[in-house]
């Protein structure tokens, strides 16, 4: 199979490259300011609001949307659903880059990047939930790197090393599932220490479960969403198998997402019932909660079900995009909008333009690296020397 990368013939000055270039330049300037002047001049963070969008969006949303890696590899390698095989590598790559961008963004928030290994080698705060989060991010990023490596090694022609890593695929998949389960839920568990700050409709002792299950939904939806975009922009990189399996992936993942969304909806309702928080639904925050739970959980659950029943791929793809947006809404609600809800509006947090520019900077880097990799490495096609051995 001849894989002719056509990037050489394409003009450099495309609208996408132009916008990406501007974002990167602004991001580089703000990065310089952040690491030379500190958080104060760059962010709107305060003692009331120590976590802004770098945590609420870059980290919480980034980690949730990176869940496609473990969901897809578990479906294929643990549950034996080989019909999703062609979706594994793109999902692993999205997960790997998602987590890498999370760690990059985390450096902006915590500063002093050289101290990143301190929780492991200097001061182990083993009673802290953040220690568990840090340990899982570090370990899972390593696992994702190893899971992704065979594609890079095939590209580099390092056959022996590729075969060694390929032989431990199942072990890595199991590790990925374990670490993701721990990590996604512990991000929710972080907010358990703030019952007085998080609005009662979003606060629940089930937060770890909510975060984990919604991450599975995010992962399933993200695979459909990312696959749709990839088919639009990188179709020339896809082989026959990938093209043949793509509709099955959309239908299968749409069905799974519908089922998990139904379960998520029920446990969210049960969360309200257990804490007897019904009366909050009649307030302004209650209206916003209903928008989230009806508009971004019940509605996509129903639309996914309709799309799956009627084999309506377009409906499933649009629903996936809507669900990805819903995950963003949920994570921002928990970390920012419903957090510190009792403070007067003058004390509430809204990100500065420089914080937003760093978020765009990180996302842009992720997209550019994704494009670099998929236009060179065997992500959407099988490498001719290895066939479908992975």
């Amino acid at each position, binding site marked *: 199979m001849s894989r002719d990368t056509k990037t050489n013939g394409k003009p450099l000055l495309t609208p996408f490259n132009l916008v990406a270039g501007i974002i990167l330049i602004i991001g580089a300037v703000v990065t310089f300011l952040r690491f030379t002047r500190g958080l104060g001049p760059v962010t709107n963070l305060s003692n009331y609001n120590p976590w802004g969008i770098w945590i609420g969006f870059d980290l919480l949303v980034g980690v949730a949307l990176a869940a496609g890696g473990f969901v897809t590899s578990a479906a294929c390698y643990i549950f034996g659903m080989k019909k999703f095989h062609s979706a594994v590598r793109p999902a692993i790559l999205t997960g790997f880059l998602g987590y890498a961008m999370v760690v990059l963004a985390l450096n902006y928030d915590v500063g002093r990047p050289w101290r990143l290994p301190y929780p492991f080698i200097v001061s182990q705060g083993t009673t802290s939930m953040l220690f568990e989060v840090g340990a899982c991010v570090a370990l899972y990023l390593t696992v994702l790197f190893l899971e992704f490596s065979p594609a890079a090694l095939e590209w580099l022609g390092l056959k022996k090393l590729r075969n060694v890593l390929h032989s431990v695929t199942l072990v890595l998949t199991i590790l990925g599932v374990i670490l993701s389960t721990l990590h996604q839920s512990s991000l929710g568990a972080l907010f358990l220490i703030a019952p007085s700050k998080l609005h009662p409709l979003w606060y629940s002792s089930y937060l770890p479960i909510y975060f984990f299950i919604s991450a599975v939904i995010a992962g399933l939806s993200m695979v459909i969403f990312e696959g749709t975009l990839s088919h639009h922009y990188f179709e020339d990189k896809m082989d026959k198998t990938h093209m043949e399996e793509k509709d099955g992936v959309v239908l299968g993942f749409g069905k799974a997402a519908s089922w998990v969304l139904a379960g998520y909806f029920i446990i969210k309702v049960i969360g309200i*019932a257990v804490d007897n928080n019904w009366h909050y639904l009649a307030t302004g925050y209650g209206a916003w909660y209903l928008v989230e739970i009806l508009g971004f959980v019940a509605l996509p659950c129903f639309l996914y079900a309709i799309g799956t029943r009627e084999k309506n791929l377009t409906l499933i793809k649009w629903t996936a995009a809507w669900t990805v947006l819903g995950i963003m809404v949920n994570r921002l609600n928990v970390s920012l909008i419903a957090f510190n809800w009792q403070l007067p509006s003058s004390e509430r947090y809204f990100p500065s333009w420089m914080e937003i520019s760093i978020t765009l900077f990180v996302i842009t880097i992720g997209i550019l690296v994704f494009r670099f990799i998929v236009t060179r490495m065997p992500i959407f096609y099988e490498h001719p020397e290895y066939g479908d051995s992975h």
Partner: protein
Amino acid sequence: MHGIYYTLQQFLTHAKGVTYIIMVLALLAFLGFWRFLAGNDED
């Protein structure tokens, strides 16, 4: 549903009672939903 509860037992009896009813209804709804979701499957 935001009544006055004088004891923890009163509160838990009410909250858990509502929760259990929702759980039973949800389990039944899941059966229907699964049939709806898998309704057009060929096999």
